[in-house]
């Protein structure tokens, strides 16, 4: 295919993915907005006012970046996981397989679709948070950069999950048993400096901690961890996972008998 044809194919896929999640917005855009509003009201306003300050910021200001990140992570992941899996389930993935579209375009199409959903929900959550607090952003470029990379990383993760999944249950296992716990333990609601030494060390093994912290650093200008290292790690993860996903696609893992 010529570069122009590849661009058309990629565009087709991305538009199709965006159409999918906007068509079913009550399942994709509404629930995370409601959940996050609840978090803001309960943890931020009601309980937060009793907690006082965290790392020198009001509790509300402290949790906003974490909650935005949490929304981005779960939505990017589950968008790609459920979209690609349902393409597998309905066999419409065959439409792509019989076409001359290269595998990297298929992968990129779904990943971009997942990023748009994740970032879209992230934006909604950000707007909602403005009802509760005034956000200031210390490092805009870094803030945007880390959230975009995080969306990409988890979209790729969702894709791999969908390739490996054989039934619908298989795409909810990782979000429920891995992503949610890691996010809660990733310093969304607390600073790890509150933890005893041992648990601080354990927390450092949690990749989500780094993303949340860099993101919060972008907003507030403070972080528990070295920012540059964290960004490098995220990029490295993206490269590796993209490679793995592509390799699985080339082998036809989970889609070709």
């Amino acid at each position, binding site marked *: 295919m010529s570069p122009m044809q590849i661009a058309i194919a990629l565009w087709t896929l991305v538009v*199709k993915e965006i159409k999918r999640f906007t068509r079913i917005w009550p399942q994709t855009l509404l629930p995370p907005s409601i959940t996050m509003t609840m978090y803001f009201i309960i943890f931020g306003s009601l309980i937060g006012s009793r907690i006082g300050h965290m790392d020198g910021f009001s509790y509300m200001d402290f949790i906003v970046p974490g909650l935005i990140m949490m929304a981005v992570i779960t939505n990017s992941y589950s968008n790609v996981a459920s979209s690609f899996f349902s393409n597998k389930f309905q066999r419409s993935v*065959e439409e792509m397989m019989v076409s001359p579209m290269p595998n990297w375009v298929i992968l990129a199409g779904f990943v971009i679709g997942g990023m748009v959903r994740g970032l879209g929900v992230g934006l909604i959550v950000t707007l909602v948070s403005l009802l509760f607090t005034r956000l200031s952003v210390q490092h805009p470029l870094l803030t945007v950069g880390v959230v975009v990379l995080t969306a990409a990383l988890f979209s790729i993760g969702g894709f791999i999950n969908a390739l490996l999944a054989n039934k619908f249950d298989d795409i909810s296992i990782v979000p429920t048993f891995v992503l949610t716990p890691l996010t809660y333990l990733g310093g969304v609601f607390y600073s790890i400096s509150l933890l005893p030494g041992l648990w601080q060390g354990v927390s450092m093994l949690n990749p989500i901690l780094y993303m949340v912290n860099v993101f919060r650093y972008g907003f507030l200008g403070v972080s528990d961890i070295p920012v540059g290292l964290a960004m490098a790690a995220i990029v490295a993860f993206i490269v590796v996972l993209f490679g793995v996903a592509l390799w699985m696609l080339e082998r036809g893992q989970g889609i070709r008998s």
Partner: protein
Amino acid sequence: MAEPALSIRGLTKIYGNGFHALKGIDLDVAQGDFFALLGPNGAGKSTTLGIVCSLVQKTAGKVSVFGVDIDKDFARAKYHLGVVPQEFNFNQFEKVEDIIHAQAGYYGMPMREAKPRAERLLKDLGLWDKRKGSARMLSGGMKRRLMIARALMHRPKLLILDEPTAGVDIELRRSMWDYMRRINREEGTTIILTTHYLEEAESLCRNIAIINHGEIVQNTSVRGLLAQLNTETFLLDLARPVDKPPVIEGFEVQQVESNQLAISVKRGQKLNDAFTQLTEQGLSVVSMRNRANRLEEMFVSMVEDANGGGARVPPVRQIDSGEVAAKVETSHTGTGGRR
């Protein structure tokens, strides 16, 4: 001659569970041909076509499409292919026109080109009124036609149809045949189809391969195949029931029902001779039809041969039993009398 539209050499497929679905088949389909791939359920037809269009991973062998080896440049090979699979494989929740437009996009066709093309195909295939509805609201026959329209969007040079008319009513089937003939003739599209309706193969296709248990058992022209047909069986409805089948000199006769006989007529024999003898015995025939489509009879005998069954044309009773025969029986619908 130009290189074949499809060339398959030593194609082997062993599925993950160890099942040997294809045992090294060779097949050539010339450009512009209308080719039938026949075989009983589980013979390996879909597996073969699946490998050609990258839905199934081959175990060994070579496949090339218009001279392009799929191992070397699958993308280029795929560009020539239009695929209508046996099972529905579109997103049921998408709109008909979205499905069609997206497919064009996957082949790199810009929207301004895809729209008029989609309009033409949807109109040709009687789906234009349904374009705004979601695909799950189509009837089974419409879903098949949707897949045909989708496969034709990028103007493939080789169209692969895996049971395109399964579940399509007789009238519609005939209009689909006309359509397929037209694209074969007017646009020069090479067409390969699998079907269980042998009448379909006989009336549409020029060349034919019969596959059984993952092996090609016959690969010839439809005309050549029919010429090989030695015996045809006719069913005669008698005016009155008889107790036992009459003896007709030179013909094999069996009683199917009390007032129905089956008579095998070998090539060179005259049906007149049989009627004369029947008249002499005071038996009158009120109606007659052939037992099955001629190709069906051929097919049954060929498959049974391959399965190690002896006779080239099996006795009538055997036709009634067995999986292959059962399939052939269903394909009898719409075959009317002798054609």
